[in-house]
C-alpha cells in the first residue's frame, strides 16, 4: 500500500526527516509515536504534498506508484487521505458544497458520474449521523465556528465519504475528550475492512486503547528508532520517550 524508504524531508530549509522507512501493507494499522519535534506532522504533510514540505531523498510508493509523481489532488483521488491536526476553517464555503466537490472529483477521476444533489444530500446526512454531527453542520461554512471535537469528527466524516485506501490520522486525538475520542475511534474501526490501511500519528498512547494497531513505531530525530507491536506503546507510556532517546544515543 505505502512503502516509505529512507525518506529525507525538509521544511523551510530545515531538515526534519532523516532516513525514515516504513512499509504499510493493505489492511494494516500502523501507529507512529514520538515526542514533539520528532517529525510526526512533517511526515503527513510530505505524504500529502503540502507546499513548503519537500522530500529531498528516498522514495515513497503508494499502491505501487511513485507518490511524488502525483500532485496533492491526484494523491487524494487515488485514495490517500490526511486527517488534519488542525482542520482549516473556510467561512463562506459551505461544508456541503465542499464535500460534494470532493466526492465528485474522486468519482470523476475513477470514471463515475457525479452524484445528484439529492442523492448526495442523503448520503451526507447519513454520514453525519455516523459521527454524531447534526446535519445542520452541512450548511455551515467548512469548520466555521466548530469546536475542536466537531472539527475532528468532520475530518472523520470526510474520510467516510471519500472511502480512501490509506488514511493518515495526524494527531487526530490531540485535544479530544474521551467521548469524542470514542466517536473518532468507532469511525476508524468501522472502516477497517482488511484492505484499507491506516497510519495513525499520535503523541499519546491513549488513542491506541481505542484503535488497536498492528505495529507501533517510535519516531525520533526524523527516523524510526524502534518498532514493535502494541505492547511497545505501553512500554513507552511507562518509561517515557527519554528511555528510547537514551537507548538510541
Amino acid at each position, binding site marked *: 500500500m505505502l512503502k516509505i524508504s529512507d525518506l529525507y524531508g525538509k521544511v523551510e530549509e530545515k531538515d526534519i526527516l532523516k532516513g525514515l522507512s516504513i512499509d504499510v501493507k493493505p489492511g494494516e494499522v500502523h501507529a507512529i509515536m514520538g515526542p514533539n519535534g520528532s517529525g510526526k506532522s512533517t511526515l503527513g504533510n510530505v505524504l*500529502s*504534498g*503540502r*507546499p513548503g514540505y519537500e522530500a529531498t531523498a528516498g522514495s515513497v510508493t503508494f499502491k505501487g506508484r511513485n507518490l511524488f509523481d502525483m*500532485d*496533492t*489532488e491526484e494523491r*487524494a*483521488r487515488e485514495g490517500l487521505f*490526511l486527517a*488534519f491536526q488542525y*482542520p*482549516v476553517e*473556510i*467561512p*463562506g*464555503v*459551505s*461544508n*456541503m*458544497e*465542499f464535500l*460534494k*466537490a*470532493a466526492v465528485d*472529483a*474522486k468519482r470523476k*477521476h475513477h470514471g463515475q458520474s457525479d452524484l445528484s*444533489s*439529492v442523492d*448526495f*444530500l442523503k448520503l451526507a446526512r447519513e454520514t453525519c449521523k455516523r459521527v454524531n454531527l447534526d446535519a445542520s453542520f*452541512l*450548511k455551515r*461554512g*467548512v469548520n466555521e465556528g466548530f469546536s475542536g471535537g466537531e472539527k475532528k469528527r468532520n475530518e472523520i466524516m*470526510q474520510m467516510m465519504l*471519500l472511502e480512501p485506501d490509506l488514511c493518515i490520522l495526524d494527531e487526530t486525538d490531540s485535544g479530544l475528550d474521551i467521548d469524542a475520542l470514542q466517536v473518532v475511534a468507532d469511525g476508524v474501526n468501522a472502516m477497517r475492512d482488511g484492505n484499507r490501511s491506516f497510519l495513525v500519528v499520535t503523541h499519546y498512547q491513549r488513542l491506541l486503547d481505542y484503535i488497536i494497531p498492528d505495529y507501533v513505531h517510535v519516531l525520533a530525530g526524523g527516523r524510526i528508532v524502534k518498532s514493535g507491536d502494541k505492547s511497545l506503546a505501553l512500554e513507552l507510556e511507562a518509561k517515557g520517550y527519554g528511555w528510547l532517546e537514551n537507548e538510541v544515543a
Partner: protein
Amino acid sequence: MTDFQQSALQLADKQQAAAWLQPLREQGASKWSAASWPGRKTEAWKYISLAPLQQQNELRWGGEADDSAIDAVEQVELDATCLVFVNGRFNAARSSSLPAGVIRFVDADAAQQDMIQQHLGQVVDSERHLFAALSNAWIEDGILLHVARNQKLEKPLYILNVATPEASAAVASQRLLVVLEEGSEAEVIEHFASDAREQNGFVNSLTEVVVGANARLQHYRINLEEENLLHVGGVHVDLHRDARFHGFTLAQGSRLKRIDYQLNMRGEGAHMDLNGVYLPRNKQVIDYHTNVEHCVPHCTSNEVFRGIIGDSAKAVFNGRIHIHPKAQKTLAELSNKNLLTSRTAEINTKPELEIYADDVRCAHGATIAQLDETSLFYLQSRGISAADATSMLSFGFINELLNQVPEQAIQDYLRPRLASLFGKGDEALGRLSYE
C-alpha cells in the same frame, strides 16, 4: 466651466419641471457651474479618471424603450411594490400601483410637495458632492417614500432602474427620497441593471434618507450593469435618535462606477451597519467612498467591504470615519478586505479615521491578499483541483457577506449570479446547502 459641465447644464433646459422644484434646480445648477472640475489632485477623485464621462459628446436624455429591454433583465423574485424606471423614465405599465406613502414627485399634492421640499437636497451636502449638485439641477421626477409614525411599510419597495441600448451615450437621472417618521420601518431595494448589450450611457443617481427617531430602514443597492455604462451615485442618510440603518450594496460592471455612502449620526443611540461587495473585472473601474459622521455620543457604526478585483480592473475603497469632539462612547468599526486575482488588477484602499473624542472605540483594517494557501491545500488534499479550489475560495470570500443578507430573496437572486462569475454553476446544490 468645462464643456461637460456646460452641456450637462443645457440638458436641464430641455426638461419641463414643476415650478415648486425650480428653487432646488437653480441652486443645483449654480453649484454645478461654479464647481471646479475634479482632477488628479482632487482628493475625492484621486484614483479614478472622469475622462470617460467628459468624452461623452452631445449629451441627451435617454429615450423610451420597448418592453423587451425590461424583459431582458431578471428581477429579484420578491413580494414587493415594484417600480420600474427605464432610462430614467417611469414605466407605469410595468410597475405596481403605488401604495399610500409612495409618491412620484410629479404627482405630489401640496402637502407632499412640502414634505419633499423640506428634505430633498437637504440630507446631501451638494457643496461636497459635485454630482449631487448636478442631480439637483436635473430634478424633474423622482420617488418619495414616506412612512408615517409607528407604521411599517407593508411590502418592501423594489425600484428597478433599467438602462437599455436606446440610452446609448445618453443620460438618466434617478432620485429617491425616503422619509421614515418616528418608530416606523421599511425595506427598500434599489436595483440598477442593464442587459448585456452595450449601453455606454451615464446614470446619475441620488438617494436621500431620513431615518427618524427609533425608526429602522433596511436598504439594498444592487448595481449589476454592463461593461461600458458610467454610473455616479450616492446614498445619503441622516439618522436621528435610536435610528437604525442596515445597508447592503453590491457593484459589478461599468468602466466608471462611483458610489458614495454618507451616513450622518445625528441622534444619540443611532446605529448603522453597511456591508458591501465589489467585483470589477475586465477593464471595469469601481470606486466606493463611505463617510460616517459621528456627531453625537453613544452611536455605533459597522462597515464591512470586500472586493475581488480581476483582469485589468481597478477598485477604490475610501472609508472615512469622523468622530466629532462631542461623540463620546462611539463604537465604530470598518473592515475592508480585497482579493486580487490577476497581476494587472489594482486596488486603492484607504481607511481614514479622524477622531476628536477621547472615550471611543474605533477599529479599522484593510487587507489586500491572495487566497489563503492553507485553505487551498486543505481543499486540494480532498481531491479538489487547484482551479476549482480557487473559485470556491474566491466565491466563499464574498459569500460570507451574502450569507448575512437578511432578505432571502436577494440572497437567492445574487448567489447563483455571483457563483457563475467564479465558474461555479451548481445552482441546485447552492439551494440545497442553504435551504
